[in-house]
């Protein structure tokens, strides 16, 4: 019964989460830097690879999110971050979990952290600003929400 309630409460988030997952998947295919080109300034690490330790943990975190178990997702993502502490994509995932936990302040902070490690990964930067915009809106800070969504639009 409990889960039933949860699903009801989380329904819009859930859909949004799925959308994000889809975007992430699409992004994962597109954003890998062409072979041979050096990754500039250490930023823009390749997205989390399937089958790696971090990839396995990320998949498990996604499962937890889909089951509405944000706390479990958080712990799992922390493990993934211990393996790849400077993977901007994982920090973004953490921001999403924080959003799911209704900890919007931390959602923003994790997005900022993800941006600081994103290098030239403009798609990820865009997603970070979009999420920040929603988090600010949840906190009732419409000015910042607006600014963030403008930054999202500018990140291309």
């Amino acid at each position, binding site marked *: 019964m409990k889960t039933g309630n949860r699903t009801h409460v989380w329904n819009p988030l859930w859909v949004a989460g799925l959308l994000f997952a889809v975007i992430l998947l699409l992004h994962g295919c597109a954003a890998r830097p062409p072979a041979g080109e*050096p990754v500039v300034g*250490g930023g823009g690490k390749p997205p989390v690879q399937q089958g*790696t330790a971090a990839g396995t943990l990320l998949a498990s975190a996604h499962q937890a999110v889909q089951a509405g178990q944000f706390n479990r997702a958080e*712990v799992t993502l922390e*493990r993934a971050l211990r*393996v790849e*502490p400077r993977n901007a994509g994982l920090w973004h995932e953490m921001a999403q979990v924080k959003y799911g936990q209704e900890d919007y302040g931390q959602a923003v902070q994790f997005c900022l952290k993800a941006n600081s*490690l994103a290098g030239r990964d403009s798609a990820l930067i865009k997603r970070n600003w979009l999420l920040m915009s929603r988090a600010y809106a949840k906190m009732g800070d419409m000015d910042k929400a607006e600014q963030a969504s403008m930054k999202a639009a500018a990140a291309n």
Partner: protein
Amino acid sequence: MFRKKKAAPKKAQNKKIKSLRSAFTKVVIIVLVLSSVAFIVYANYLNKVIRAKFDGKRWAIPAVIYARPLELYPDLAFTTEMLEEELLLGGYRKDQAAKAPGGYDRRGNVMHLITRDFYFSDGLEKSAGVTVEFAGQRVAAITRTDTGEHLSLVRIDPARIGSFHPREHEDRILLTRADLPDLLVKSLIAVEDRHYYIHFGVDPFAIARAMFVNLRAGETVQGGSTLTQQLVKNFFLNNRRTLWRKINEAIMAVLLEMHYTKDEILTAYANEIFLGQDGARAVHGFGLASQFYFRRDVKDLSPAQVAMLVGMIKGPSFYDPRRNVERCLKRRQVVLDMMRAENVITEEQYQTAKAARLESTDNILSGFNRYPAFLELVRRQLDRDYREEDLTGDGMKILTTLDPQVQMQVEKHLSATISTLEKRTGRKGLEGAVVVSSREGGEILALAGGRHPLKPGFNRALDAQRPIGSLVKPAVYLTALANGYTLATPVDDVAITLTSAGTKKWRPANFDKREHGRVPLYQALAQSYNLATIRIGMDVGVDKVVENVKLMGVDRDFSPYPSFLLGAATMSPLEVSQMFQTLAAGGFYVPQRVIGSVLTADNKVVKRFGLSVEQRFPANTIFLLNNALKRVVSEGTAQSLAGYIPDYIKVAGKTGTSDDLRDSWFAGFTGDKLAVVWIGRDDNKPTRLTGAGGAMVVWGKIMQSLPLQPLELTEPEGIEWARVDSSYLRSLTDYFGENAWLPFIAGSTPRQTVTAQPASPPAVERRQKTGTGLWDKIRSLFH
């Protein structure tokens, strides 16, 4: 008459006797009634004592502290030796073919092991049989031992590193009745109390037999105590051999039997019995004893092992297998004889057990509270969130961030390097402290509070408040970079006299007592020039620098005196570590953590200390500062670090020395770890060591022996790189520096520079392939 005379007194006497008798009877009755009442009251009191202890928490089960779990995955920099060390620390045993959970079998570079069930805050990690292959100091592959299926990672149950038990130094692993194997129960009854299931708490036959045997021998050779009596004795009474205690023991034993079932009493006994001493820790109960002596769960004990433990009940120190091997073995054989006589074991089992050698004492699992300095920090963090009774009450599990690999290296190199430094400087009495944390997550991986890791006492990492010297300079330069300065801004390193109302004039000087004229800002930091720093700090304002130190994570009030700019303020190594954590994490404040989560005895998460971040400084300012801190190592005061850390790793750091060489500091970070080292004396006398000559050597040796990730600084948006031609300084000063590639916040690049292609960092800034680390070469020397 005479008769009468005689009779009269006789009559009177009789009367007297009669009245005496009746008085006596009355007294006796009164005494009897009173003593019965007293007895009833007393028994009732004892009854209450028993029920209170038995129905409530029977034992104050200490909270158990665990290290971080080891997570292995392909390509992780790790060796077979390191894994074996970890497994042994975690109480694993070497087992041919790794048959049961907690066993491992090493074949060259291949390790077979079976992990044990463990509840983490994200749920149960089930026991798994895995095979880990190593190649070239890395994990090459992990497979399931049974199916050969490849695994992307495996999480090994963590090592117990300590327990909190403030009042009594006891420890135990609590067992339920179902946990007690038949073999153990039957052996226990055969040896200690044959009529256990029949008697009512006291065994008159056993007492009679013991009395007979003892009388014949003329001394106490046999006890007639039942298990219930023994439990009562251990549980409620002191150890004195008095009649009164014996009586109490008997009454309480009977009362106990009235209230509780045989199974309940037996289980309590199995958990309470004292079975040895491990330093300051008393080993109680069969659960802990089988881990302690055999690294096994009690259900996995062999008949010979059961016999040894049961035999030890008679005198855990007298029959201690570590000290009295022969005596212990002899006693075990006697117990085995009794087990056979009572048909607890078959003839075949008996023969095998009798022939079995006594367990090697090398196997004994010591190492509890082996990291007292770290545990102290754990305890303080818990004290903020819990009352002590809550912590010690019901066997909580505290999962910490301690990385045993890092801790071992920290302890080893701190102590060895201090000894070397003492020889070199001819000064005894040096002490030190180290804090190592993960760069992005702020997890404390290791901590040393002094050069003798096992010696409890003054924890310098937490409690030594020392002047931080030049370690404050990054805060000064950060403030400058946020207030209009660039890395190339010319600053004057020339004498300055400071006066402020009511204080003496202050004339700070450089370490080399010279002036260096006009230098670019980055150079002033790299060379740790005091005069330039004072000028910069006075220009931007000491209060702003103080404010930034707070933002970096040391949230205390410091007086904004000019001397603050040269590090007159005192901090503990841990505080310094938190301050540098904010730089290492790219301007994000990450509260340092030692505890991941706290679980109850039945594995419910009561508290999580999750990762949190808060941006305190703009990414671009931090990027400039961290680039300058790299130059401290590549060309500044920490240049000699190159002797320890290979060039491709890159380190950003800062040396620190206080007045008269009293404190030697180094704080620095690589791609994955931040470490702060302090060396000094407890009496605050000079050490004759600079930051680079003391603390940095310890830092280098520790980091050199660990797998390291190269330092990457992610370039944020809006940075442009420029080759700064120092000729623009030349006209103003005698400075002849080389050209330098420097990052600038877009728009702030000085005109006197040759601007590079936008956003094209120099080649050295690029990510480099990890080569063969020096650490593993060094490590291999020790194996």
